[in-house]
């Protein structure tokens, strides 16, 4: 299976994983191991035989390495999603890896960078529902070689109240079963649109950077952000800035120079989406 710029061979005997993959990755191609270079082997399984009956758990292994402590079996699918994010963010060092959502329209990318809990993934889901192409809700991979964004198109991760908000967008949206009591609260994943999955090879050039901030009852506040501030804030969202050091800083500078940066506070999609459309038309 494709996982960002890598190919991953996934192995699991757990029914939760089989169900999650069938539901969320329905449109992903199953690659033939005979003619695919496998970058990583990922396995999700029970830690040991004893544990199978008493408080059953799931353990994730990547090439024999164990990036996280085992979690309750019910959280096997969210753990796989976090594990695949870890695979990308800890190895794709030929890219600047930003903790940001990214969507595309007309070959150009809109990047949404924000701290967890700011409504980034929810807004991403709404934009995708409104016709933008999903590149990622979590990891923006900016190529160090040419500055384009590499699509990932994996499921969108939704937390707590945002699960019902996204479910309310349209009855056709496919959401996984909600997993309660995880480290991030209640979690569910949204199946990526088929068109986004099929367009996984089409990279996009970054055009706009938005720092969204959801606040219940907030009035729409939308203002352009200066490059220096945008650069500083984006540095905080770069997963591999310390690994890339000077090269990463240069890439961040080039990224910020190539986009229009904006900061938007909002309380509803009705406020923020028309505002994004308006800004997008201005830069077109």
């Amino acid at each position, binding site marked *: 299976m494709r996982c960002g710029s890598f190919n991953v061979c996934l192995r699991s005997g757990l029914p939760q994983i089989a169900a999650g993959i069938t539901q969320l990755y329905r449109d992903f191609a199953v690659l033939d191991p005979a003619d695919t270079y496998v970058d990583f082997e990922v396995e999700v399984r029970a830690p040991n035989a004893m544990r199978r009956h008493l408080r059953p758990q799931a353990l994730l292994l990547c*090439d024999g390495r164990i990036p996280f402590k085992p979690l309750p079996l019910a959280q096997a699918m969210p753990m796989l999603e976090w594990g695949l994010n870890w695979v990308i963010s800890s190895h794709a060092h030929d890219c600047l890896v930003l903790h940001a959502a990214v969507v595309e329209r007309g070959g150009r990318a809109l990047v949404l960078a924000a701290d967890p809990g700011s409504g980034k993934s929810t807004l991403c889901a709404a934009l995708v529902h409104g016709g933008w192409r999903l590149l990622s809700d979590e990891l923006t991979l900016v190529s160090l070689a040419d500055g384009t964004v590499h699509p990932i198109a994996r499921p969108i991760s939704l937390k707590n109240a945002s699960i019902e908000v996204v479910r309310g967008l349209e009855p056709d949206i496919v959401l996984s079963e909600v997993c309660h009591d995880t480290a991030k609260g209640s979690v569910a994943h949204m199946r990526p649109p088929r068109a986004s999955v099929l367009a996984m090879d089409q990279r996009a050039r970054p055009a706009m950077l938005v720092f969204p901030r959801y606040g219940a009852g907030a009035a729409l506040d939308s203002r352009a952000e200066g490059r220096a501030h945008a650069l500083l804030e984006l540095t905080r969202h770069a997963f591999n800035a310390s690994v890339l050091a000077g090269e990463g800083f240069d890439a961040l500078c080039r990224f910020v120079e190539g986009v229009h940066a904006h900061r938007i506070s909002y309380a509803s999609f009705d406020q923020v989406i028309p505002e994004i459309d308006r800004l997008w038309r201005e830069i077109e």
Partner: protein
Amino acid sequence: MTRAPAQPTLLSATLGHPESVRGFARSDWESLVWQSRAAELMAQLHSRLSDSGVLDQAPEAARRHLGLASTIATRHASAVRHELRGLQEALQPLGVPVLLLKGAAYAAMSHPAAMGRIFNDIDLMVPKAALPQVEERLHWAGWFPALTTAYDERYYREWMHEIPPLEHKNRGTVLDVHHTILPPTSGIRPDPADLFAQSTALAGEWSFFRVLAPTDMVIHSACHLFFGEFHKGLRDLFDLDALLSDFSRQPGFWRALVERARQLQLGLPVLDALQQCQRVYNTTVPESVGDELSRCAASSWPRSWRAWLFDHALRPAHASAFGRSTRLAHGAIFVRSHWLRMPLPLLVRHVSHKLFVAD
């Protein structure tokens, strides 16, 4: 997943004979990349393949991983130099000798053993009497003990050869401050004053720091591996191979090594190190050196057990090289390392604490 380990020596054989990659299938390259990542030897593999002009044999995807490993290693090297400058600034006013150990020493010496190395921590050694001042200066420079329990604190302070690891409050880098090279509880107590007396000052940029004498550096590296656990066994052995290949060009090195090992009562770990280097990386060791060391290296374990143990424990921690036997060997090594480090009553206490009190 309990498959038989398919290619237990793929990585070490390729490091020893890079030309063997001609004719590798794609699956061999996949395993090679996984094994070298697990063993923390990917950047070293990259430079071996590149030096032998066979890097272009690799599929593009494998070349990408190897190239990235090399970039990360370069970044590690510059981060270590940055940390060393900070440590020099913090410790220079004290006027006490500061010895760099292991990776940090190889890096400051620009030794081939430093090439491609990934640094998990920086090890240094200072005289025990200077520890309070050194710790205070390090606190002011931002180094604080990583969270430890009262038991851990006592374990390190009373029984070990180092203080609890320090972590930099901003950068998260880890510093191990030693006062000797072996846990005093192991019963073998090299005199730290002697190690300092034999040590050499570095030249040029790093002249503030000292490093162990070549013989002591090899002995310390051997002890670190063969008294410890083998999580990074192949990498540590690769370091030893690089050290031996370089130092053995100095006239009289082998004789001095045997003499020093005998004097410090560390003939056994040195003999183990030389034999395993020969077996895994084809390191050239004169036959007489092994014979002489055998005479001062007694082990209570039968020779065949030890051979089996080292063969299985010195494999990359990846399923393609690692099976049930490897896990068993690691378990045995873990027990052995504690056995070597502590007398029995202390070992019983330590194990009971870890089993029943610590979580």
